[in-house]
């Protein structure tokens, strides 16, 4: 969006002193020109010749470029792509400068010059002011991020790469171009170990492990045995390495498949198959239809004489329509003749920009430029073209597709951020404990200093020959204190729950497994499962407050369906039959034979029988002619490419031999495809299109129409037209376009009297009120003189090298007037299944749904109504200002009208939160079927009618970049619904950013197209819809799914579960580690601060790795508080996530107090039970080990909400495993603790102590829990009781 537009004048002076190094002849000649008119032409030229309505459109773009400029000025990084930018500018401005000079002449838009000047001034003023603000604002940085992602990277202009056509040897002789072998894998067999370790140690957690292990290797600190201390690190490293290795192996496998595919490569005049990986730059390759393209190549020739090739770029940019690429005529002829081509291609160094390519080709002394339209890229597919021949310019890793395969930026979940905050607290505890130990040690040493030499349990010195000898591991009190500090860090290391990060990763993996496996999130129409592309933010799904949704393709199916037509003032509804096509075939007698279609379409349309009858009437009334022309226009006036295929013999729904051919329409816009398909359904089938003519099967009659000229659709005119010569030599202009642009150019015959126009207009209003997309169809006969005049001008314009688009526009204006209105079409973009219900549920869950769409206001509102986003009782606040002041006024008006309290537009911010809260609680609930009591007490505030804010892109331009943002924010958060229409991709991101920046609420963006990518990446959670528009959005997303309605299940069910699970998991892990560490701490206080652990080294290490880790993981994956039915039935339960019920500060502190109590119980019960007894340190340690394991597992068991077999196995299993490990450890005679547990197990005190510890430790928690549930039951608690008791009752009752 921002790449190809002119920049503002500010950039001029910068570029002047350092002319960019351009090596293309074309460009260097442009430079001077462009610099000459930079200042004067900057803004006004780009606006000068646009109609009033469209003016705004460009303002928006200009504004965005402002952003881009600012960004590039502000950032050091961006300076890298200055040369690139300059090049765009020079080219563009060169086109625009003359335009300004001609401004006065251009009057077809009916725009007054004076108005223009004002607006131009206004805009440039506004944008420069905006820039000032921007420079200061934090936003620029964030936008930089987006634009960097969206825009290209650094181009290399200094040294072009030389490609010798059909001479790969020479090409690769000097230069070191990469081969076509691709490697997405990270490792090879040899470098796996070092590289994997290197990558793994980028994580702070592993460094912590490493530091602790290293610390432990120092002799004075060796708290644990050396091997023991390495164990946790090795364990973690091994697990991760195995996981990485497996993933890489899979990548290797797919790389191998990819590399071993074959393509035809020219070798001594003939094409031989060659493996992809062997292809080199300079090779000439032949691609056949439907084949994938192995590398980036410049087209040399195609099967089409004009050198056209159609490609499908779905995998690259996500657009599903076919694109045209051209071979240069010079080379195409050579290829068709079959002669070999030898020449040189000079092209830029490889870069990521898939929309740009600059190169030139030297062929037999001639030099001609190559551009984006001459290159086909790896990852695309050749379509509808028999073959194409090209020369490889970039191969393998240097292809644009590979350069673009960057990973999406990783996100971190909200809960994890909070968790890190609490981890800091834990670090503080750790520090305090270590300091206590260290100071204690210091004091103790000081007090006992005189005795230390001989003290039997310290003995700091050797004694040789009766004298005090050298010191043994004693470095003076200060050092000893310091060492004691360090060694206590080693002992208490698991206070910082590093293993928690690994646990969380595993848990999220498990959660994703269940999300992916959810059959209710499988979309059968696209055969797509739910995808988890990011494994870091599962739990964020449970706390979403804002959902930003794209409309087309997300809420709607993006499958256009021809629904209604108004022809000659008469409305025909095309979906009248519920009984299916058989009834239509029943259209009487002679019509039936016409209806037997020769052509099979992908989509079935059931034509209106009345209209069919009209079409086959043998009358020549005006009405019939209009209908005829109407459908002819639909069939002819488009850029759709028909692809005809014989009916496959074994097709399921097509009997072979009936002569019916299937036809597939490929085109840039789904609307056009729908119209062509509709025309075909009424008997006007377009089945052949070349650049010179089209062939239409009109009611069985083959109609060959010469296309004399075609004015493509552009956003300024908002219409397209074709000039057609009929077989009978009459010439017609067929036009279709948006209603706003069409009615002004109709034939001016008493406009008010013409009933057709009036009725059509009323039909159009009707259609758009139903949420249909409308187009107006008109035609005009051309006289020979008119034709001649036009032809002359058209030829001139279309061959013109400069100003082509402007000239063409003028040419179009010549014939696009005095049109006869034929009718109008209405196309439905069908709502996806279940969208209204999903939105309703989300809203009840307290989630605000904002729709951001590129559609126009009316369509957006009508879609809003049909998906129950808007309801009729809502106040609609519509903001569509054309200037800053206007927007400001509209905003203030809205505020004053609906929030009388605040006279000024400023001081609302403190009230915002409160209001938002009320708003949420007030959402009327109508899912109260479960119990009649729910209805009681429900009342809708009569004074508080819900508000809906509708705002359009133009206003957003002013609002987002100005101080008005906060006002918009205040207003928008008060509204229940916000609809933004006509927004650009970057604006979508801007809106998300606004919410992110101003609230703490979680945002989710959902979309399906490339235009949603920036929004998806900006939001906390990005969801991609695998829809019609390819994979771009999916690639950028964190989660991807087939339908919008799955969002309900994703958030309300999985989001809730994940949040609740992870929240508990984190708290439990904090507790689990802290209780252990505190227990050790209390003991150390009894050992003269000497960091002795009563537990064996192995037990201390195994505690968090083996003894207690499995149950937490299992519970984190499998536990669930409520069934999905309940969660879906009561969406309001989702608010638990909003209130952060599963994880918050107070829960953390409660947990810590509980931990303290439990650790004291753990320590003191054995201490008292064995006070003044013969118990030895290992027995005591053994008792503590098992007691703490049992305690934490029973603690967990107390909180498990759903016991399945696996949970039982994990929980009780870990206790058994612990016993098992201890039996093994105590059976090794060489360990000092040999035989401990066998002796200990014989004493009843041991067992009684364990029971006592468990009960006393957990009693307060149990009592607290019961009290809490009696007096302050949470929503989830109640719902859970209701769910379980109801089920039980049903079970017992029946």
């Amino acid at each position: 969006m921002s790449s190809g537009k002119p920049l503002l004048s500010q950039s001029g002076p910068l570029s002047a002193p350092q002319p960019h190094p351009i090596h293309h002849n074309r460009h260097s000649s442009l430079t001077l020109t462009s610099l000459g008119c930079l200042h004067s032409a900057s803004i006004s030229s780009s606006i000068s010749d646009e109609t009033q309505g469209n003016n705004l459109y460009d303002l928006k773009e200009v504004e965005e470029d402002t952003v881009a400029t600012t960004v590039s000025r502000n950032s050091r990084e961006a300076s890298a792509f200055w040369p690139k930018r300059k090049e765009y500018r020079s080219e563009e401005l060169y086109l625009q400068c003359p335009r300004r000079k001609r401004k006065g002449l251009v009057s077809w838009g009916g725009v007054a010059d004076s108005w223009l000047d004002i607006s131009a001034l206004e805009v440039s003023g506004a944008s420069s002011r905006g820039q000032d603000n921007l420079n200061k604002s934090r936003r620029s940085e964030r936008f930089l991020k987006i634009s960097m992602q969206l825009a290209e990277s650094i181009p290399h202009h200094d040294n072009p790469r030389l490609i010798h056509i059909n001479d790969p040897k020479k090409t690769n002789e000097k230069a070191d171009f990469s081969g076509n072998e691709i490697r997405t894998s990270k490792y090879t067999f040899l470098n796996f170990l070092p590289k994997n370790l290197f990558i793994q140690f980028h994580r702070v957690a592993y460094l912590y492990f490493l530091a602790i292990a290293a610390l432990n290797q120092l002799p004075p600190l060796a708290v644990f045995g050396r091997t023991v201390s390495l164990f946790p690190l090795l364990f973690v490293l091994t697990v991760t390495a195995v996981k990485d290795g497996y993933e890489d192996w899979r990548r290797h496998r797919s790389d191998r498949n990819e590399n071993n595919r074959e393509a035809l490569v020219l070798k001594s005049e003939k094409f031989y198959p060659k493996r992809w990986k062997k292809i080199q730059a300079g090779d000439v390759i032949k691609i056949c239809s439907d084949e994938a393209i192995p590398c980036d190549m410049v087209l040399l020739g195609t099967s089409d004489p004009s050198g056209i090739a159609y490609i499908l770029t779905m995998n690259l940019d996500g657009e599903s329509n076919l694109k045209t690429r051209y071979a240069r005529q010079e080379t195409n002829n050579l290829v068709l003749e079959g002669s070999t081509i030898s020449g040189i291609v000079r092209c830029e160094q490889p870069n990521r920009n898939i929309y740009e390519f600059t190169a030139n080709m030297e062929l037999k002394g001639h030099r001609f430029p190559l551009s984006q339209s001459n290159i086909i890229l790896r990852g695309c597919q050749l379509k509808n073209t028999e073959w194409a021949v090209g020369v490889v310019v970039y191969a393998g890793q240097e292809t644009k597709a590979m350069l673009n395969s960057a990973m999406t930026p990783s996100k971190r979940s909200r809960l994890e951020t909070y968790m890190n905050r609490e981890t800091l607290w834990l670090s503080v505890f750790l520090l305090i404990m270590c300091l206590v130990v260290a100071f204690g040690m210091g004091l103790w040493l000081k007090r006992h200093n005189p005795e230390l030499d001989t003290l039997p349990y310290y003995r700091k010195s050797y004694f040789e020959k009766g004298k005090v000898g050298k010191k043994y591991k004693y470095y003076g009190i200060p050092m000893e204190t310091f060492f004691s500090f360090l060694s206590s860090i080693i002992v208490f290391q698991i206070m910082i729950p590093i293993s928690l990060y690994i646990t969380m990763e595993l848990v999220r993996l498990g959660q994703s497994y269940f999300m992916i496996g959810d059959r209710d999130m499988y979309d059968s129409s696209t055969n797509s499962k739910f995808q988890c592309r990011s494994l870091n933010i599962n739990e964020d799904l449970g706390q979403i407050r804002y959902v930003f949704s794209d409309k087309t393709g997300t809420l709607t199916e993006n499958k256009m369906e021809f629904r209604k037509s108004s022809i000659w003032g008469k409305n025909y509804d095309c979906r009248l039959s519920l009984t299916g096509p058989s009834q239509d075939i029943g259209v009487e007698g002679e019509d039936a034979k016409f209806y037997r279609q020769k052509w099979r379409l992908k989509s079935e349309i059931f034509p209106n029988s009345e209209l069919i009858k009209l079409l086959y009437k043998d009358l020549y009334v005006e009405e019939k002619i209009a209908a005829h022309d109407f459908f002819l226009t639909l069939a002819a006036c488009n850029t759709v490419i028909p692809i005809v295929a014989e009916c496959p013999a074994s097709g399921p729904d097509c009997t072979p031999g009936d002569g019916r051919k299937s036809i597939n329409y490929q085109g840039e816009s789904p609307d056009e495809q729908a119209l062509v398909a509709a025309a075909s359904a009424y008997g006007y089938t377009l089945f052949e299109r070349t650049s010179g003519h089209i062939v239409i099967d009109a009611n069985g009659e083959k109609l060959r129409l010469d296309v004399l000229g075609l004015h493509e659709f552009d956003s300024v005119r908002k219409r397209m037209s074709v000039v057609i010569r009929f077989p009978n030599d009459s010439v017609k202009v067929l036009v279709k376009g948006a209603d706003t642009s069409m009615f002004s150019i109709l034939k001016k015959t008493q406009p008010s009297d013409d009933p057709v126009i009036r009725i059509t207009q009323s039909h159009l209003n009707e259609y758009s009120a139903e949420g249909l997309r409308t187009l107006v169809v008109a035609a005009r006969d051309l006289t020979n003189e008119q034709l001649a005049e036009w032809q002359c001008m058209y030829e001139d314009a279309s061959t013109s090298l400069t100003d082509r688009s402007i000239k063409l526009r003028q040419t179009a204006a010549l014939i696009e007037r005095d049109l006869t209105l034929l009718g109008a079409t209405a196309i439905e973009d069908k709502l996806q299944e279940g969208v209204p219900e999903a939105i309703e549920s989300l809203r009840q869950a307290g989630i605000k749904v904002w729709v951001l769409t590129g559609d126009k206001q009316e369509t957006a509102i009508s879609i809003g109504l049909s998906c129950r986003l808007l309801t009729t009782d809502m106040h609609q606040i519509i903001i569509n200002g054309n200037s800053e002041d206007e927007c400001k006024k509209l905003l203030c008006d809205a505020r004053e009208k609906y929030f009388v309290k605040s006279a000024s537009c400023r001081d609302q911010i403190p009230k915002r939160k409160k209001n938002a809260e009320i708003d949420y609680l007030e959402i009327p609930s109508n899912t109260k079927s479960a119990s009649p009591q729910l209805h009681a007490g429900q009342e809708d505030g009569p004074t508080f009618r819900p508000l809906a804010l509708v705002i359009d892109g133009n206003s957003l331009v002013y609002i987002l970049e100005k101080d008005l943002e906060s006002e918009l924010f205040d207003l928008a958060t008060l509204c229940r619904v916000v609809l933004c229409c006509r927004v650009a991709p970057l604006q979508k991101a801007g809106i998300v950013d606004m919410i992110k920046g101003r609230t703490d609420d979680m945002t989710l963006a959902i979309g399906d197209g490339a235009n949603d990518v920036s929004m998806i990446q900006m939001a906390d959670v990005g969801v991609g819809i695998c829809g019609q528009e390819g994979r771009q959005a999916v690639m950028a997303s964190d989660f991807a799914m087939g339908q919008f309605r799955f969002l309900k299940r994703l958030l309300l069910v999985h989001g809730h579960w994940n949040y609740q699970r992870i929240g508990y998991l984190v708290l439990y892990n904090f507790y689990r580690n802290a209780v252990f560490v505190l227990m050790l701490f209390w003991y150390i206080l009894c050992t003269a601060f000497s960091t002795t652990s009563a537990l064996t080294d192995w037990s201390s290490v195994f505690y968090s790795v083996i003894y207690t880790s499995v149950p937490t993981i299992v519970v984190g994956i499998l536990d669930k508080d409520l069934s999905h039915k309940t969660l879906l039935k009561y969406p309001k339960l989702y608010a638990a996530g909003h209130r952060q019920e599963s994880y918050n500060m107070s829960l953390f502190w409660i947990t810590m107090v509980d931990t303290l109590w439990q650790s004291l119980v753990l320590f003191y019960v054995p201490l008292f039970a064995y006070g003044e007894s013969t118990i030895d340190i290992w027995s005591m340690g053994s008792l503590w080990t098992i007691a703490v394991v049992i305690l934490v597992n029973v603690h967990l068991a107390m909180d498990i909400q759903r016991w399945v077999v696996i949970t039982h196995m994990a929980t009780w299993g870990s206790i058994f495993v612990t016993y098992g490990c201890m039996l093994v450890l105590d059976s090794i005679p060489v360990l000092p603790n040999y035989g401990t547990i066998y002796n200990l197990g014989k004493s009843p005190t041991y067992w009684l102590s364990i029971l006592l510890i468990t009960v006393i430790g957990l009693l307060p928690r149990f009592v607290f829990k019961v009290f809490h549930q009696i007096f302050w039951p949470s929503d989830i608690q109640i719902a859970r009781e209701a769910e379980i008791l109801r089920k039980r009752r049903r079970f017992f009752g029946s």
Partner: protein
Amino acid sequence: MNSNTPSSSAGGPGSADSTGPRRNTKRPKYSRFTQQELPACKPILTPKWVISTLLLVGVVFLPIGIVSLFASRDVVEIVDGYETECIPTEFQNDTLGYIQGLQNKTCYRTLRVSKQMKQPIYVYYQLDSFYQNHRRYVKSRSDQQLRSVSEEGDTDSCKPEGTADGRPIVPCGLIAWSLFNDTYILTRNNQQLNINKTHISWKSDRDRKFGKNVFPKNFQNGTLIGGGTLDPLLPLNKQEDLMVWMRTAALPTFRKLYGRIEVDLQPGDTINVTISNNYNTYSFNGKKKLVLSTTSWLGGKNDFVGIAYLTVGGLCISLAIVFALIYLVKPRRLGDPSYLSWNQNQGAR
């Protein structure tokens, strides 16, 4: 933008139909596991559950508490601290000099039996403020060396008591070096009470941990004598005092088994104890006690377990009563939706 994708979409529009019927669907297979519908037990804290759990704990704990308390009360224990009493008055201000000197350190004490003590009566010594759990101390041993002769030289962990005169000490380390060496001779009515010192250590230690052909070598030959000596002719697995001592205690106050008296003591018996007060606890102000004690099934005299069980049991029962009252007075119907937050808030408005 994955480069692997083209392969999957290479089929083109024409081929889609032909593969129609056997198109492989990605629809997740149904299993109760993947759909998270495994049969599950979902416990909730109903009043019945809460009260019965608490009652159960109470009912189990109270008897255990009573039995434990009785057991502990049955134990008869005679404790005699002698660390100051065994210092002659002239040395009261120079305890360290006394203990390190060459004087006769025999000391006589008299114990009175107040209750009948049934055999076996265990004789313990109890030390105070002796940090057998100090890290330097705990680690100062070589388990390899204790087990087999061939590992004799493995004294790295034993410093600074690893070697003497360049030869390894067996058993090495601070623990062995500081072996307790007070001895007790008990007489009743001028008749010596036999103290059985066999099998006072753990069987596992005798059998596997201490080698049967490892003999003390070079022990207490250094200039600084830490404690008791060992008979160099007895293998380590016969040196039970050493084995007991080397099971280092968990806490700075600890008892260690000295031996058993295998006759009953009657109330009113006077026992004369002849102590040779050799062990130096004076350097760190440690206390020494001689303990004679019978045992119960629960071990020594310790009321804690019994009292704790009684307390907890009682507490649980009273909590059960409290909850029962709460449920009676202010019942909340489980799953009652009127308590849901949104309903409560709406009601409040």
